[in-house]
């Protein structure tokens, strides 16, 4: 006779009350998940989150109240959840899951790991740790009205990295510097400008006109000629933007005229660019000042941030924010740098103003601070109900796992509207592991195309092995019979190699590198393909070029959108929820997705 404890079979209820589970993330999904776990009868829960509580969390992260703003999410979530069941054992870690302290042994303590994350790097990492420890992982993500849940079990299902995920969206330098055509290009430019003026200068974040733009030249020789000419040419390239600004005392009017008049006039001389495009129109500060119209007196009937100002309004905002940031910089002292933060009002004002002025110059409709903030700050709209549904589904999958019913686990998609088969929640059978997966295959291997004479060891470490292939603390050696060590995870050991080129170590076409991450228990063999013609730093063979995601069905679009909110996919995605009518998928086309809406994080320049 079936014995029930509440809704559950007794055996299941017993195993729930004794097993240990890990929740990674205590935000939107995490809060709902903790509540569900406690109410379902889980007694041993550990939760980890590196973040603190912000007021914008309070519309959905219901374990937090206004009085908790600034405190540790994991800690407060634990305290609130304990109220629902004081006899539960909840351990909270205010820490990053990528900290080496959380090694394979740590993960092995748990019967089940549940992700409630918002970025791809952490998801990749937890994926590898769970593979290494052979612990089932429930992965999930939400974005606006959409969400999904899936189960990852080593050897049985696809891992999180089996299917290539659309790479971070990047824009070519010439688009940002010379020929922006969308608001997002102007916003990226404005963020770069912030860094050049007030923050950490980055060679990949140039804002001045790009004289070496191949599109600008009537013939190839001209490109080279222009490049050298500008070196001799006064202030376009010779002096860094920051140095120039400093030399003028961060005079906002001088800055304005350089960026929005002189540089634009320079762009106009590159006439080939404007043959098939509408040419930009330079702005003149004093002209704008004199032709200022008195404001119409209607008070804002909505959010102040949602107003779109006129050009002079943004001129003033530019001036004001420059002055404020200048003081901030002065206060911090010699050699100080500011870090851009969407929640820092002058920083946000600056980007709003600079982006809008540029939009106006390039004949685009200007945007409100509210909209600029969405794009510049990668804000994903979020509500309580979507997270509630997904967190409920996570626990239900967890119960199947604990009952030993892994075959009944599914990937489940939450749509905004029912599909043609009337389904709002669409369960899909899980796919088996991909034989070529560069993470979970028995001997993972990849081929990378790059120029061995132009790729530095530091680039290999940071952009390729860490960023692209998700290692946290890599060791890389050359398979040259000598086991030459290129990169060591020990701090400082191979620093001297950073600025050397791969070819300096004898690496050439066909060379093989072995990359290891000890913490993730992960070894990856990298085959090097030397390629001279490169307008990107590197390319992973077997994938579409990193700018263009492969053509997608509606459901796959959903997945890529609910993937990693802090990462990028569609920078120009509207901040409002988009309608997706998913349809039933056969097992093959289900993507494993992750958390929230992707949007622009640090948009990278693809170098030429």
């Amino acid at each position, binding site marked *: *006779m*079936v014995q*029930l*404890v*509440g*809704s*559950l*079979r007794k055996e299941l209820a017993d195993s729930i009350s004794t097993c240990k589970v890990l929740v990674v993330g205590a935000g939107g999904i995490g809060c*709902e998940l903790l*509540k*569900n776990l406690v*109410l*379902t009868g889980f007694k041993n829960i550990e939760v980890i989150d590196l973040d603190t509580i912000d*007021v*914008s969390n*309070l*519309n*959905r992260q*219901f374990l937090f109240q206004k009085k908790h703003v600034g405190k540790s999410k994991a800690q407060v979530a634990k305290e609130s959840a304990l109220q629902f*069941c*004081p006899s539960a054992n909840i351990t909270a870690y205010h820490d990053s899951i990528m900290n080496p302290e959380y090694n394979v042994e740590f993960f092995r303590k748990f019967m089940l790991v549940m992700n409630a994350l918002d970025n791809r790097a952490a998801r990749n990492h937890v994926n590898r740790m769970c593979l290494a420890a052979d612990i089932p992982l429930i992965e999930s993500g939400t974005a*606006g*009205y959409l969400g999904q849940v899936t189960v990852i079990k080593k050897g049985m299902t696809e891992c999180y990295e089996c299917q290539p995920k659309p790479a971070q969206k990047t824009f070519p330098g010439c688009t940002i510097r010379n020929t922006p*055509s*969308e608001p997002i290009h102007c916003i990226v430019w404005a963020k770069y400008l912030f860094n050049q003026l007030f923050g950490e200068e980055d060679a990949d974040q140039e804002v001045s006109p790009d004289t070496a733009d191949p599109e600008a030249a009537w013939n190839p020789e001209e490109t080279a000629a222009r490049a050298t000419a500008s070196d001799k040419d006064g202030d376009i390239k010779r002096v860094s933007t920051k140095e120039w600004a400093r030399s003028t005392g961060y005079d906002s009017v001088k800055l304005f005229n350089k960026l929005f008049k002189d540089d634009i006039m320079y762009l106009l001389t590159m006439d080939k660019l*404007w*043959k*098939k*495009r*509408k*040419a930009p129109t330079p702005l003149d500060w004093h002209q704008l000042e004199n032709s200022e119209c008195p404001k119409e007196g209607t008070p804002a*009937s909505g*959010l102040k941030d*949602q107003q779109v100002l006129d050009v002079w309004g943004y001129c003033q905002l530019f001036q004001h924010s420059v002055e404020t940031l200048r003081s901030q910089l002065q206060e911090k002292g010699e050699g100080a740098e500011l870090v851009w933060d969407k929640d820092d009002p002058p920083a946000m004002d600056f980007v709003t103003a600079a982006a809008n002025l540029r939009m106006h110059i390039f004949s685009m409709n200007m945007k409100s601070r509210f909209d600029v903030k969405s794009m510049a700050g990668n*804000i*994903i*709209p*979020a*509500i309580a109900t*979507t997270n*509630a*549904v997904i967190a*409920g*589904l996570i*626990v*239900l*999958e967890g*119960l199947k796992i604990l009952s030993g019913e892994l075959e009944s686990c*599914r990937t489940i998609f939450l749509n*905004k509207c*029912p599909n043609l088969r*009337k*389904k*709002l*929640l669409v*369960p899909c059978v899980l796919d088996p592991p991909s034989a070529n997966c560069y993470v979970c295959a028995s001997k993972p291997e990849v081929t990378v195309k790059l120029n061995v004479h132009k790729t530095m060891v530091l680039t290999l470490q940071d952009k390729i092995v860490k960023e692209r292939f998700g290692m946290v603390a890599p060791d890389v050696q050359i398979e040259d019979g000598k086991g030459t060590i290129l990169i060591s995870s020990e701090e400082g050991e191979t620093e001297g190699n950073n600025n050397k080129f791969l070819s300096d170590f004898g690496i050439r076409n066909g060379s093989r590198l072995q990359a290891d991450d000890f913490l993730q228990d992960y070894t990856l063999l990298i085959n090097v393909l030397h390629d001279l013609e490169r307008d990107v730093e590197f390319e992973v063979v077997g994938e579409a070029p990193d700018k263009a995601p492969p053509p997608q069905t509606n459901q796959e679009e959903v997945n890529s959108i609910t993937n990693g909110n802090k990462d990028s996919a569609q920078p*120009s*995605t*509207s901040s409002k*929820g988009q309608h997706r009518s998913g349809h039933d998928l056969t097992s093959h086309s289900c993507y494993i997705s992750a958390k929230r809406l992707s949007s622009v994080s640090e948009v990278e320049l693809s170098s030429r």
Partner: protein
Amino acid sequence: VIDMIEKEDPVISEEEAAQYDRQIRLWGLDAQKRLRGSRVLLAGLGGLGAEVAKNLILAGVKGLTLLDHEQVSEESCRAQFLVPVTAQGQNRAKASLERAQNLNPMVKVHADPDRIEDKPDDFFLQFDAVCLTGCSRDLMIRVDQLCSKHNIKVFCGDVYGYYGYMFCNLGQAHNYVEEKPKVVKPSGESNDGPKAKKAKVDPNETTMVKKTASFCTLKEALAVDWTSEKAKAGLKRTPVDYFLLQVLLKFRTDKGRDPDPQSFPEDSQLLRQIRDDVLESLSLNSDLLNDDFISYCFSEMSPVCAVVGGVLGQEVVKALSQRDAPHRNFFFFDGRKGNGVVDYFGPN
């Protein structure tokens, strides 16, 4: 009159803007303002009720009345998260009040310990939407009839073990808007040469399209005739959950309670019997709904309450804000399969 003014009140405070930022970015300021002017009645503070309460309070409605005459039992503490573990013996609505209010001080939360059956008709008229959980079939039909006559949006929902449903009646003419991408046609002329492009319009510009949907009453929805040839032909595409719901509502009417794990053997037997009776009364084959469901429909499962409460909560938000197409008119969730379907039952 006060309500109208507040609904029209253009000013949104800084506190609201900061707290509701992430949802305003999803459904827009107008929707948020309409929510802010809406009063909702929520009957039943069991597992599902608590989820709906949380979702509506977080969304920022003007007021939420928690109506429940039941007392907190030992099981209630485990079933829902608004009732403190020390509150046994207290009225469930009153015991839920403090935590509910703390979810969002900007919402007026009120606890009412009365029996819903004892409420006079005009009690319901003060609300813009009414949400019934844990109510008997007859009561739901009665309240639905009354409210829809007065243009009050009606929602019903329950969770039985791994299964749950939601029903809504938004009236015969529910108006709402949908946001659609704007199509921009480029004009042919330009100052910059024959092939120069016109100034590019932001590809993300959208336009609001007005729509209307009509709903039938709960009585009509539950009284579908299955004897016609047409109905029988449509059975294959009909979610079996609809019939499961009829069985569980009948159990509730006959026993005055839901299936109880403490009475598992007797209740299982009764469920089987009621299943047979219900299907027979509808002139349907008894194998339409097999025995599987029986051991999985006991008690309110927390994750199932979360799923159904999430969908139900969002439907209330949509209806009050008059934005986005409502689910018409049932949502059924099967927690064992992970299936969630929307389907219409009622006259065509």
